[in-house]
């Protein structure tokens, strides 16, 4: 699918509609009822084909819970998650298979998401094996390596032979292997060195532009999300409190949670001016 065929007004490829998720906590006293934590409270969220959206919020705001629902490893207590318009919880085995290969995830720390004993080539082909996807796996590996800017020598090496930035490219490559429609990236640069963060953010943007991928970028740093996405939702206490274009959120934050995030951004310029901590 090429990016120019896709329009913003098309149907969402992945969406959460009024999802609520609760967890039962451990009881504080022996004969008490177990308290219930509402991690998500009637949240609506979607991403359209070829669109990059951001999800920001403090820890505990519900970002990770929403992510788990969107990739289908948890089911909501109420509301539905839909993929290509269909309820993920009521899919036939065939459709469920398509959903699983189409929504792929990139995690924060590539070192802990890659098996240290597995060569990179094997690790890259693993998703195809486990999803039982037919075809020329080696050819697919070569295509994907090119897309993330790594050369084929990488295939024979082990994860410890790479730097953090290269490993994150490998993790992105692995997510791309089953030709997903949606990439969910949870804090993909916060464990990386400053000089590498920009490379990985640029790569994610290129993938959205060139492959027509949809990207959901989860981060705590508003400027990282704003650089990579065209629409950002701010979460607080299990709700989405504000959604908008990044530039608008920065210049006119409406919700208190957004203001807090905007205020928290430190810049070199404010620092030199002596106003950063004012």
């Amino acid at each position, binding site marked *: 699918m090429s990016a120019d065929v896709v329009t913003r007004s098309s149907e969402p490829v992945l969406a959460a509609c009024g999802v609520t998720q609760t967890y039962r906590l451990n009881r504080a006293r022996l004969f008490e009822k177990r308290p219930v934590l509402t991690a998500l409270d009637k949240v609506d969220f979607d991403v359209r084909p070829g669109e990059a959206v951001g999800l920001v919020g403090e820890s505990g705001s519900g970002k990770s819970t929403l992510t788990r629902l969107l990739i289908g490893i948890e089911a909501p207590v109420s509301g539905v998650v839909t993929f290509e318009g269909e309820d993920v919880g009521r899919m036939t085995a065939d459709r469920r298979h398509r959903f699983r290969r189409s929504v792929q995830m990139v995690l924060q720390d590539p070192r802990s998401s890659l098996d240290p004993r597995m060569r990179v080539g094997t690790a890259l082909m693993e998703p195809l094996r486990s999803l039982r996807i037919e075809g020329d796996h080696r050819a697919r590996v070569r295509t994907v390596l090119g897309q993330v800017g790594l050369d084929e020598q990488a295939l024979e090496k082990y994860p410890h032979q790479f730097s953090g930035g290269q490993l994150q490219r490998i993790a992105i490559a692995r997510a791309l292997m089953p030709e997903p429609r949606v990439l969910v990236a949870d804090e993909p640069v916060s464990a990386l060195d*400053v*000089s590498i963060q920009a*490379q990985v953010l640029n790569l994610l943007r290129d993938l959205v532009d060139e492959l027509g991928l949809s990207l959901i970028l989860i981060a705590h740093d508003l400027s990282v999300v704003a650089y990579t996405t065209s629409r950002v939702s701010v979460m607080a206490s299990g709700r989405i409190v504000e959604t908008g274009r990044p530039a608008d959120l920065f210049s006119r934050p409406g919700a208190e949670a957004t203001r*807090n995030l905007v205020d928290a951004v*430190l810049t070199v*310029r404010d*620092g030199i001016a002596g106003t*950063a*901590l004012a």
Partner: protein
Amino acid sequence: MSAVPAVQVRDLHVRAGGLTAVRGVSFTIPAGGRMGLVGESGSGKTLTALSLMGLLPVGLRAQGEILHDGVDVTKLSDAQLSRRRGRTLSMVFQDPLSALNPVRRVGHQIASVIRRHKGVGSNEAGQQALSLVQQMRLPRPERIMHAYPHELSGGQRQRVMIAMALACYPQLIIADEPTTALDVTVQKQVLRLLNEAVSERGCGLLMITHDLPIVAAMCETVAVMYAGRIVEMGPVSEVFTAPRHPYTRGLLDSQPTMDNIAIDGSSRLPSIPGMVPPLDGLPAGCAFHPRCPRADDRCRREAPMLDGGGRRAACWHPLEGTLTGTNAA
């Protein structure tokens, strides 16, 4: 306050087996001065800090001179070092949960630092600990004193760490990525607190971080480390507005800021190509040359040393002029 510098480091090397992780680092932090030590992972910034504290991991050796409070820290025995740590020299670590004792109440831990170094009784130490916790603007200080570290939030724990580090009015506080593990919204509060506490006491501060905006907010001078060496140093206001080393320039350019988003959502973030070289594969000449747009034959052959003056850079082809981009003033 005396005019003796908080710390003076001369030609520091840290070696591990056949590898050298810190390769000749020198800097001075004047009494009450604040310096940022910036670098990526593997640049040697944390090993430099640990050398100052005498806390290098087993198998690593510091060579060179670290003058602090009239002694060379590298020559001290473990017992002598241990009498200094927390008194004239203290450190705030990145992860307070692993730096605090999980089975001791927070109040007890702060008080024990005070008892150890000030020789006061336990009642008096407890009082001083409570007043420190109050100064850290922690909610319900009496409760915090009785809490265990796991019962506190990340930001509260880091404030407890700062309270412990400040307890004995040290001449130098080393803060190693003190806010990296915290939520962004808490980061600023903790920095503000550290800033005030350091100012009030007139302590020197060595801020170790990869985060340039934090250095700009907290420090007067900055030293940029790359592959075990300082490649540029000088006043923050000059280094960050008119960087001379291409690496410093690259770091400044690759920061996503609100401005470059607002101006053009489709622009690419400038990035430094390549990656940090591993210690066992440092390139010949200038260690940055494979990633440097200005590198030529000389850079590939000879390693540049820091030049003289107030704005020092280790580069054969230093940049001139001021940043016109959106990242600097």
